[in-house]
């Protein structure tokens, strides 16, 4: 089977989807490395999985419910403790909309 090449263009696209800024050098490096890894994991295509159902969690739980009761949580001060910037009890974030 031919190598499933992950082009630099694709790496840039994945970087964008993952919110990662990549330098040109990183893009080249990851393109080669990720190609190798994907080529390797592609070995699975040789396994006959037939009607085998997927297993995503060993406990195979679906929903876990609890009573909707108010319980103690973090204080505002605790929640903001690690924030880079806070303003009047809010997280301060960079503007995303232009005026």
């Amino acid at each position, binding site marked *: 089977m031919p190598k499933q090449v992950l082009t630099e263009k694709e790496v840039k696209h*994945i970087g964008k989807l*993952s919110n*990662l800024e990549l330098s040109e050098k990183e893009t080249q490096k990851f393109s080669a490395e990720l190609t190798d*890894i994907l080529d390797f994991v592609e070995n699975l*295509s040789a396994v006959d*999985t037939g009607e*085998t159902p997927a*297993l995503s969690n060993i406990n195979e739980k679906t929903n876990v419910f*609890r009573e909707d009761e108010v319980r103690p949580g973090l204080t505002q001060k605790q929640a903001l403790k690690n*924030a880079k910037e806070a303003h009047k009890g809010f997280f301060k974030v960079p503007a995303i909309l232009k005026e």
Partner: protein
Amino acid sequence: MDSLYQLSILEAKEGIKKGSFSREELVKSVLSRIEEVEPKLNSFVSVNKEAVKDARKKDQEKEDKALSGIPVAIKEVLSTIDIKTTASSRVLENYYPAYDATVVAKLKENGAILIGKTNCDAFAFGASTENSGFGVSKNPYDLERVPGGSSGGSASAVAAGETIFALGTDTGGSIRQPASFCSITGLKPTYGACSRYGLLAMASSLDCPGPMTKTAEDAETVFNLIKGKDPKDATSVDFPEKKLQTGKIRIGLPKEYFSDGIDKEVKEAVLKAVKSFPEKDFEFTYVSLPNTGYAIEVYYIITPSEISSNMARYDGIRFGKERKYFEDEVKRRIMLGTYTLSAGYIDQFYLKASKVRRLITNDLENAFKKVDLIIGPVSPTPPFKIGEKTDDPLKMYLGDILTASANLAGIPGISVPCGFADKGLPIGMQIMGPRFSEELIFFVSKTFQTLTNWHKARPKI
């Protein structure tokens, strides 16, 4: 009395109880050992300066708790309230959690003293601690070699006497492989047996916190204190109480775990170890786990997929630095997972891997119909040299071949020391069992440690 730091939990408890030494003396012995060997080992990201004060207070109160005054080192991916928790990544270099991980809280409630936070691969992504943002930890048996990973700092700290015991986390072998590399005992519990609350998530369907100790008896003591259902982790479960079986213990040796790809000295050490069990109580047969050969492929699709989702929380706003500071392996896995989950590829990668995961689990379940436990090596090689695999991520991944299946199937596995390779490098034996078979695993490990002395070896450092 100058080597209190070498004691096991049980020995330390007894010494305190008898009045042979105080909690303060024990903590001071460990701290001075850290001062002595830490420049060579780099096991810790931070050391707790309050530890002596804590010990003194417990001495004054004559605290009567299971782990009163016993020093514990905690892996950097486990949250500790108001104590820096970096995940060994530069992104979290100034992060101070507002709460304790449940397993940490349980140890504190039982009187343990937090001695420091141990180094690991950033966010636990790796098998050598070389991916840490705070430098590599060294193997106390050979300073040019890795201590394993990702819980490498916890393993080197326990082996070198920088703590009495430690907690690690295991997603694909991260407790067992470093335990094997540093000649200590390390348990990866049944999935869900120990709460993941406060564990900085890597792959949520695989992550397990667990004990890293000097003896199997200690691992059992710690496991029994940290296990149990936690309302804060919906995947945690009550641990069913079972009576130990009577009659011969049937042990399976998977032929795939003794194949050509496994180092000769490792295979020989494990097979020799197996022979030390008395025939009147143990019965050995070969078993086959045909799909475990695909464990790496499955693991390196499922894990990055879950990682790409879990790592989305690091936005650099509520806490932590921007994403550009992520270490290379972190970026690699986020991108890999983003790709394997993306439209057009999810069937080919994630869903296919989830199906093969079922086949691997079925293999193990079928084997456990015929045998009670499975024994094999932990790592295909003894500890490797620092830098040996850093240029080739795939080569590093292949080392997880004997450990990843237990995570995919959610079963427990322990690593116990079982010998040394030619160059004096540690080798570990892995004992795996069906889900919730920890008690039997401990029984067999403790039996092994009464028959052999490998666990008593200490590095010359």
